[in-house]
């Protein structure tokens, strides 16, 4: 089947204009390290350095990330149901609070939980330190990634027709309906949640680095930045890229079909359960989650920051104040470009069935941040491209490469919900491609565009994995500053900086929501 209006010159032009920079600036660096690794002169030496210990380390990383993915997905099912399907009051307040850990940089929570362990246990006992690191890593990662699972699974639950559940309830018990109807219906989202969290967790660098827990990403970082063994680091990177891409590609169909991160339910009636048992259970479990993942860590950060007065907090403010402007500006630029690329990738993928750009963004998204950073260094660190490498441009490229897929997915879900007749009605009226995009498509997916801007902004603002590899000398951005200072700082100062990053993030999110709230409400239309 060929849809006629999709073949216009303007439509091909836009796709080419966006695809080329994505290919040249983002994908080529990754292909470059593949070539450098396999065809470099040191390849035999690097291969020889891959030993049993390294494979054990890889297995350990996979095991830890697998546990994190399992725990987070289980929490996602339980809390997703409580949040999206039970008839509770203050649903939006709970939703906002539950999602907080997703929006703050992972190392903030690592700092908070380390503070808790110092208060409760003797952290300096070496055996316990190791044990704590293992559990700490699982605890912190599960806390960070559970909200993602809640979002993915909650979105899927909200997209199930009320009638499906009601007809099952007429024929059987709630338990039958839940296990035989609801869970199978959201299976693609459960698998998506598991795979994405596994990839996120195995790729994450800041938490294991902060907790001193040796995993594959920290090993790559050490080989690259401490031992300058670039060839081995690249070979190790390829191993991890291979695992992440295999995981993603094997579940590509499910992941692309999963409704994850959809904005609104477009007037679909969602079945809400109001039985006392379910509502009380939901209140308890949601309150516990808020206390455990937000209230305790934040309280401990506040306590540690101010236990010796306000001096450390003030010191942290003075240290971080010069970085806020840069961080916000770079995150805004990064998010605007990511949203633009994401929109184009989503439109062409959903409407015109051109999946190439979407696939590229998916692969870039799956590559661990530190490894993407290495790819960028290897590609841009030369006399020809040094003007990019030595400027903020390299950070923007890092952000765009890592996070454009989030926009593509979010906007893609919204485009998927838009009946194709909306655009066809304009085609019949001889409305050109760009006017159709500007006047029909963009306004109809505007809530998703703004939501993806906010989410992208938060990811760019808090990014450490890529930034720490590529930041140009003298660059003052918040996560880098915090991370570099906290290695030698007192607990109070570290906590104060973490608290400030947390507060700034929350302030910025609130500000963005406040700005976009009315627009999102106006354009969140039913078809």
């Amino acid at each position, binding site marked *: *089947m*060929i*849809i*006629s*209006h999709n*073949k216009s010159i303007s439509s091909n032009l836009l796709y080419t204009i966006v695809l080329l920079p994505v290919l040249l600036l983002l994908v080529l660096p990754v292909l470059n390290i593949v070539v450098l690794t396999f065809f470099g002169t040191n390849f035999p030496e690097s291969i020889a350095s891959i030993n049993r210990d390294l494979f054990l380390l890889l297995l350990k990383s996979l095991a830890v990330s697998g546990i994190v993915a399992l725990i987070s997905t289980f929490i996602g099912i339980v809390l997703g149901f409580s949040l999206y399907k039970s008839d509770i009051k203050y649903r939006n307040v709970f939703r906002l609070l539950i999602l907080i850990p997703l929006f703050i940089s992972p190392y903030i929570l690592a700092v908070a939980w380390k503070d808790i362990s110092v208060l409760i246990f003797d952290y300096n006992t070496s055996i316990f330190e190791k044990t704590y690191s293992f559990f700490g890593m699982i605890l912190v990662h599960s806390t960070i990634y559970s909200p993602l699972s809640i979002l993915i699974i909650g979105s899927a639950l909200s997209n199930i027709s009320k009638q499906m559940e009601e007809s099952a309830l007429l024929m059987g018990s709630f338990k039958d309906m839940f296990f035989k109807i609801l869970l199978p219906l959201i299976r693609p989202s459960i698998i998506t949640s598991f795979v994405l969290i596994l990839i996120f967790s195995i790729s994450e660098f800041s938490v294991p680095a902060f907790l001193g827990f040796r995993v594959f990403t920290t090993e790559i970082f050490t080989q690259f930045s401490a031992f300058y063994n670039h060839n081995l680091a690249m070979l190790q990177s390829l191993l991890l890229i291979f695992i992440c891409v295999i995981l993603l590609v094997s579940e590509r169909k499910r992941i692309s079909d999963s409704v994850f991160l959809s904005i609104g339910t477009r007037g679909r009636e969602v079945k809400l359960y109001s039985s006392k048992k379910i509502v009380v259970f939901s209140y308890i479990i949601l309150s516990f989650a808020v206390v455990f993942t937000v209230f305790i860590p934040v309280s401990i950060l506040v306590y540690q920051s101010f236990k010796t007065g306000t001096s450390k907090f003030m010191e942290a403010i003075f240290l971080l104040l010069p970085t806020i402007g840069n961080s916000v500006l770079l995150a805004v630029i990064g998010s605007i470009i990511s949203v633009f690329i994401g929109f184009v990738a989503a439109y062409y993928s959903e409407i015109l069935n051109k999946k190439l750009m979407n696939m590229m963004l998916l692969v870039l998204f799956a590559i661990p941040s530190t490894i993407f950073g290495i790819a960028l260094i290897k590609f841009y660190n030369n006399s020809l491209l040094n003007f990019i490498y030595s400027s903020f441009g390299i950070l923007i490229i890092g952000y765009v490469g890592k996070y454009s897929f989030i926009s593509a997915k979010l906007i893609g879900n919204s485009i998927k919900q838009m*009946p194709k*007749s*909306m655009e*066809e*009605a*304009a*085609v*019949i*009226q*001889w*409305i050109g491609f760009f006017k159709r995009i500007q*006047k*029909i498509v963009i*306004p*109809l997916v505007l809530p998703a565009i703004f939501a993806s801007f906010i989410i992208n902004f938060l990811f760019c603002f808090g990014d450490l994995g890529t930034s720490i590899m590529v930041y140009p000398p003298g660059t003052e951005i918040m996560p880098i500053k915090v991370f570099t200072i906290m290695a030698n700082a007192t607990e109070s100062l570290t906590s104060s900086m973490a608290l400030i990053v947390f507060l700034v993030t929350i302030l910025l999110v609130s500000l963005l929501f406040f700005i976009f709230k009315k627009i999102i409400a*106006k*354009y969140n*239309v*039913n*078809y």
Partner: protein
Amino acid sequence: MSIIKLINISHWYSENRVLDNLNLEIEKNKITYILGSSGSGKTTILRLIAGLEVPDKGEIYIQNLKASVANKIIVAPGKRQLGYIFQDLALWPHLTVYENIAFGLKNMNKSEVEGEVKGILSLFGLNGSLQKFPHQLSGGQQQMVAIARALALKPKILLMDEPLASLDVKSKRKILDYIVSIKEKYNLTIVYVTHDHLEAFAIADNIVVINEGKIQESGTAVEIKNSTNDFVKYFIEW
């Protein structure tokens, strides 16, 4: 005299053949109903006429111009001088009634656009709804706006894809009367797709009954009622 000709049209969706070597002529200034059950290929016929899809085989002529051939659109949808009322009406939810209708009007200044929109809406008694959004209108009013939007571009052909399916009998009757009157007023050729044979018998000049991508019978309402074709007899019995 025919205004639309479909010659040896075949069309597939993936592996499924929806139209099978179909030949069809639509007479000018008549209301032609394409009648068939779900999945029979009737909407595909409208989409091919509109140029929203490209035939896999065959040729389509509109007003004696070759509009589409196999795998190629020759006359773009916007240049075929036709209006299309979609099954879901496709009223843009973020635009007011006024903006929905004015959207496609080109080469006019603001006051001309205003005059045109108001003129068309007055035909349907909808002048009071200019600044309303589609969701603020009743189902019947939304149908009227969709028709008004299509008419604003002064089409020669109006393609209607079951737009009244969700309406109650009374509203349906009212809009069918409007359709007959606008056909006369604007000298329109109307191609109307439905599975409701009673609706077709009420206002159609010609009826084409289609099943599994093939035409089973065509003729006036009386001829269809008296058809000896097994499928047609079965279909209109319901």
